[in-house]
């Protein structure tokens, strides 16, 4: 099953919250949705969940529009909003049972499903607890359990890890992995980029409502070659080596870090090879020559400006 977003736009009065977004999700994929605050992530997720209507563009599930047929979205998409359940005077069981009823699941199946889901999300032990008595992490689990009640093919999660302690985050990560193995496509927005890069197979980066990057983590980090950091370990005087390097083309922001010389290198792999050849031909000895591994965090910092609409 494929969920595709084409030229998606959303305007609020004079603000263009989302600008021509294009991407698609497949079952089993976990896609990170990254962007600064106010970038349009929540609006996009809400449109995909059929809560908001786009100003233009389309959202299709296997070729069928969910804008004109929102019932499709309700059947196949689960949504975890950025707010936690607020019905404080309901127990965990009552809350999940209520949503099972809301999805018109037959009583006999509902009883089994609610039990199984609570077991899966590790909520059985607190089934009779009031929502008001739960921690943030537990409430988030309840929210995820609710989004899974109708066995959706895609799950959209808006900042599910916000405010969770490390243990709850690890548990959430494991839960997402299990859901992904079950073939569910997951789109998860988060600010915790290190975690996203651990669990996501692809990433979508947006800023000011517009898409900056979309692809697998490897593609994104490898493609961002404009600001790669080169690390060299020379033998001999570090000062003399630094003075030599700083004069070479494409070398910027050079620093000495312990036994290493590090600098930003604005050039391609071929340019890096020419640089290496130049060092060796000048009779300088080096024992290490490598690019620092790009991660999602550095890519994100490089390509976004942190501006909101």
């Amino acid at each position, binding site marked *: 099953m494929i969920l595709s977003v084409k030229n998606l736009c959303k305007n609020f*009065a004079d603000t263009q919250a989302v600008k021509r977004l294009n991407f698609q999700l497949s079952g089993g994929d976990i896609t990170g949705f990254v962007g600064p605050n106010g970038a349009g992530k929540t609006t996009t997720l809400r449109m995909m969940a059929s809560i908001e*209507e786009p100003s233009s563009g389309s959202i299709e599930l296997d070729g069928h529009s969910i*804008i004109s047929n929102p019932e499709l979205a309700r059947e196949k998409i689960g949504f975890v909003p950025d*707010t936690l359940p607020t019905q404080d*005077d*309901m127990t965990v069981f*009552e809350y999940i049972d*209520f*949503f099972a009823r809301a999805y*018109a699941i037959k009583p006999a199946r509902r009883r089994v499903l609610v039990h199984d889901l609570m077991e899966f999300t590790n909520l059985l032990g607190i089934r009779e607890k009031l929502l008001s008595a739960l921690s943030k992490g537990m409430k988030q689990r309840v929210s995820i359990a609710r989004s899974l009640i109708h066995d959706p093919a895609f799950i959209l999660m808006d900042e599910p890890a916000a405010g969770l302690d490390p243990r709850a985050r690890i548990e959430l990560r494991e839960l997402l992995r299990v859901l992904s193995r079950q073939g569910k496509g997951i789109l998860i927005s988060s600010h915790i980029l290190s975690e996203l890069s651990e669990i996501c197979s692809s990433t979508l980066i947006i800023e000011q409502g517009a898409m900056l990057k979309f692809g697998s983590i490897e593609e994104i980090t490898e493609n961002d070659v404009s600001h790669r950091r080169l690390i060299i370990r020379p033998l001999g005087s570090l000062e003399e080596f630094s003075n030599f390097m700083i004069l070479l083309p494409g070398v910027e922001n050079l620093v000495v870090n312990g036994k290493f010389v590090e600098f930003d290198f604005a050039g391609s792999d071929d340019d890096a090879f020419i640089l290496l050849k130049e060092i060796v031909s000048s009779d300088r000895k080096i024992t290490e020559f490598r690019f620092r591994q790009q991660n999602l965090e550095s890519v994100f910092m490089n390509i976004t400006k942190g501006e909101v609409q």
Partner: protein
Amino acid sequence: MTALDNIIDRCDERINPIIVKELRQVVRGKFFWGVLILFLGFQCVVLSLSLADQGSRYNNSGQETLMFLYGVLFLASFAVIPIYSGFRFSRERNEGSDELLFITTITPQTIIWGKFAAAFLVILLINSAFAPFMAMTFFLSGVDLWSTFIMILLGLVVSAAGTMFQICIGSLAREGGSMVLFRIAGLFFQVMMFFSLMSISSEMVRYGLDRTFSSGYLYSSIATFVTFIVSGTYLLYHAAAAVVAPAATNRMLPVRVAATILWLVTLLMAGYWAVVSSNFEVFAVWGFMASYVLSMACLVAISERDFVTERVAREIPAGIIKGRIAFLFFSGAAGGLAWILILQILTFAIVLLVTGLPGATAYSGRSILSDFVLYSGSFYCYLLGYSLLAAFIRRVFVADHIDIRNTWVVALLTCAVFSIVPILAGGVMGMGSEDLLIANPLYVSAVRRTDSVLLFAASLAVIGLVINAAWIARQFKEFYREMDA
């Protein structure tokens, strides 16, 4: 699985999930038990004191006891529970927790019906708990059991309407400022209605049913009253569901259908009473009410979206006649204004027709028709004119800052400015003419030159129509293009 389990499951499947949720929450909450125990305590104390007072059996103090008990019951049924239900709903709306329901199979109608039914079940429960105490007053003197029974039944009907009204107010109360405003208005209305209905109930107990309602027409009067309340509740139900429904849906369709049904039902009731009482003034009263309500609906119509959404387009029926009728009833500003115009024309035509009947041409020495045309006609023209002016101002000058759904606020502000500025300017320039009131729709009765009022209001409406002609035409064309597609 036993047969009994099957039956239970089948019933369970049919129960509105909102009712289950609401009742679970209400029963768990301290509020419900607090109200029940407190008010039952009141009943016990008052009844015990009355029964202990031997002298009370020889005068009409039974009526006083009954009225006190009924007052307590009615306070719980008509005021406390409905206001509490509305408050809870407005809080949920404010938190946005109802949004998640729209990605389930639940419809806005199911939500409103569930909220209403749960609150009404609580009211029934409280009534059941209080009824034995009220029946005990029969042992005191001066109490007519039949009147008491009818009074409780009518109390339940108006409590249902009050509950729906508060839920409707709760559905409106979405954001900070407006939430407070709507809640205060709703509270004020409910309290005002409480005292009015209490005085009618007191009349019923004191003088009996026959004297409270028109003698000889007891059951017709009650049936008319109940029909009116039920139809109004039905309209409020759809209005609340429309407010709750996502903006892109065809949410005005059920409201306009319900309003048209209410218009027809009240017309039939007016016809019945005109024939039974041989008094055609009933039609004039109906005409005034219908026309005023329809005029107010202009504010709602211009606050609707002015383009056809995909979800609305999907529902447009095939066929020229069906499509044209759909334009009037489907969500859309121009369609709403056209629907109001047609119902206004029909209302005026009916009043015009009945005033032409023998014996119906005059009342209190004045022509029904001229008064109707003056008051209803000018009020409609004022409202239409200000609404259209507001639509123009919003669209041309402040579209980036004010959403179309708030056009009604611009209309009220425009009306306020047009009403106040001439008076202030007149004050500054030392002029004190009553003509300065002419732009105020509420001062039509205070201005003696009625022809100029009508002329001004009609001019305002015509100007509004002219400056919005392109906007209205675009909506017509867009709808028919979607219909053809």
